[in-house]
């Protein structure tokens, strides 16, 4: 059992080393969420009365900042699995597969590295949010928020690793990612209050684990509870989502890498 932890850490270490060496990538990945928070945050600043109608006192940009933090987490982690494809193409995967480490340790190591990287990117976005005037009523809340972001990203990295393990080409992978990423983000209260959605949309939205994560982070960040979902329910949904994704990813990854690429 010790060895699976050691092996997971080996892969985790390698992925982080690679991330550290790609400084330009860190910045490039920040551009999109930065545009969201700066541009969209200001475009919709006049919707403040709507936001206030559901009991939210601050400005729109403060309402949507948690949504953008989660957006960063979603996209960083869902893209994160792509190097699985490179690793299979350029031989690192075979190197790992012919060494005594277990297959699921490879998947777990990748997922934990992706989730940490996603959290780092999200924390940079929190920095940007603070810089443009978003305030935290309780700065200590940043600790549980980061914890949630790491956990949530682990679930999404599971989706990414699963797709990357099954996709035989970059094109398939990116196609699937685009198919999933945007709708999951849009079908959540990231940009708009849950109460104001049409009924059918609210139902769909409540099936999306992103919804619970956004609600939780927003509550921790602004102190305003929205949508009538208790914190414990949100936490339970996130945990269940993450466990399911990690389990599926390790299973699918182990099955797929044993097939010839």
């Amino acid at each position, binding site marked *: 059992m010790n060895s699976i932890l050691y092996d997971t850490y*080996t892969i985790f270490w390698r992925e982080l080393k*690679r991330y550290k060496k790609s400084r330009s990538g860190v910045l490039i990945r920040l551009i999109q969420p930065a545009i969201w928070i700066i541009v969209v945050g200001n475009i919709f600043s006049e919707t403040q009365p709507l936001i206030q109608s559901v009991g939210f006192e601050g400005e729109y940009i403060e309402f949507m900042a948690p949504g953008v933090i989660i957006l960063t987490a979603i996209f960083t982690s869902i893209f994160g699995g792509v190097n699985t494809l490179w690793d299979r193409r*350029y031989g690192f995967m*075979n190197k790992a597969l*012919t*060494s005594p480490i277990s297959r699921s340790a490879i998947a777990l190591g990748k997922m934990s590295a992706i989730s940490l990287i996603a959290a780092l990117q999200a924390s940079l976005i929190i920095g940007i949010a603070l810089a443009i005037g978003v305030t935290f009523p309780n700065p200590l809340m940043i600790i549980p928020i980061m914890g949630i972001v790491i956990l949530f990203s682990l679930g999404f990295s599971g989706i990414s690793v699963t797709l990357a393990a099954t996709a*035989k080409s970059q094109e398939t992978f990116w196609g699937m990612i685009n198919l999933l990423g945007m709708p999951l983000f849009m079908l959540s209260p990231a940009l708009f209050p849950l109460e104001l959605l049409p009924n059918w949309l609210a139902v769909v939205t409540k099936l999306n684990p992103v919804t619970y994560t956004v609600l939780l982070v927003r509550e921790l960040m602004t102190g305003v509870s929205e949508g009538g979902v208790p914190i414990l329910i949100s936490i339970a949904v996130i945990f269940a989502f993450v466990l399911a994704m990690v389990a599926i990813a390790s299973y699918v990854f182990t099955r797929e890498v044993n097939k010839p*690429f």
Partner: protein
Amino acid sequence: MPKGIEILYSIETKSLTKSFGDLTAVNDISFSVEKGEIFGFLGPNGAGKSTTMMIFTTLLKPTSGKALIAGFDVMKDAKHVRENIGFVQQETTVDEYLTGRENLLLQAKLNHIPKNEINTRIDEVLELIELSDKQHQAVVTYSGGMRKRLDIAGGLLHHPKVLFLDEPTVGLDIQTRRKIWQYIKKIHIEFDMTIFLTTHYMEEADNLCDRIGIIDGGKIQVIDSPQNMKNALGNEIISLVIEKNNNYDSFLVELKNIEFIKKINDEDLKLILFTSNGTEVIPTIFQISSDLGIKIVTLSLTQPTLDDVFISYTGHEIRDDKSKFNRKIEHAKMKRLRA
């Protein structure tokens, strides 16, 4: 090896077969490699070399048959096989953005080298492949040969019982290739490990291997030492080109009756005769041809090379991929990639 001591084979296969759909990439292969040997698989692209190596390194499961590596079954005991092998792939697989040392550190961790030994092992192989001074530079700054050396170093860091080298010098220039050969020989002596390599370079097989298996169309055509293979063909080769003639068939029959001629390859008006006594055979050939009214266009006498050995067993040169078999495999591979 002295008699009475049980011979330990590093690699043992029995009727090993691998099919992809209706094409058989490896066809009923049985052979063994002794402990401490450098054994080479020589064959053209698509002959089944890499597929065999992927079975040995547990990356592919055989369709039927058996393979034991260091005494462990690749099917039933893959984990133990992995603990006892090093695998250096055809393409270099080092992480470009990590330093040389970091790459080896990763390799050491992947192979569960005890923590307190990692640094000494890395220093040891870095010295062996003469990269100690460049170890803290990112691999992206390394030349192709240096990357290959680093890759090979990674494969032997954990002192595997069997080291697999898939086309170790493909794509490298001739000086670098010779340098890599030196390293491989050095490794073999220093670590006393069995080395199994694939290559399509005659010179490489000749230079490195104790024994060679010539593989073509998924089957082993012959296994022997390079020297024996060349000797078996006699020590000389006569190549002749003749003009078209109705007596061609009887000419061939007559040639076959010359006692010094061991083997004849007939490539339609171009004949290659493997002989042990060329200087005496040539006048006889002239005699026969003038009796039959056959006109000889050119005639030459040469020493056999491994190239000739290859031709004599497979009927074609290693360079020309004229077998239909190759294209089929490539096609199947492409199909899998696109799916």
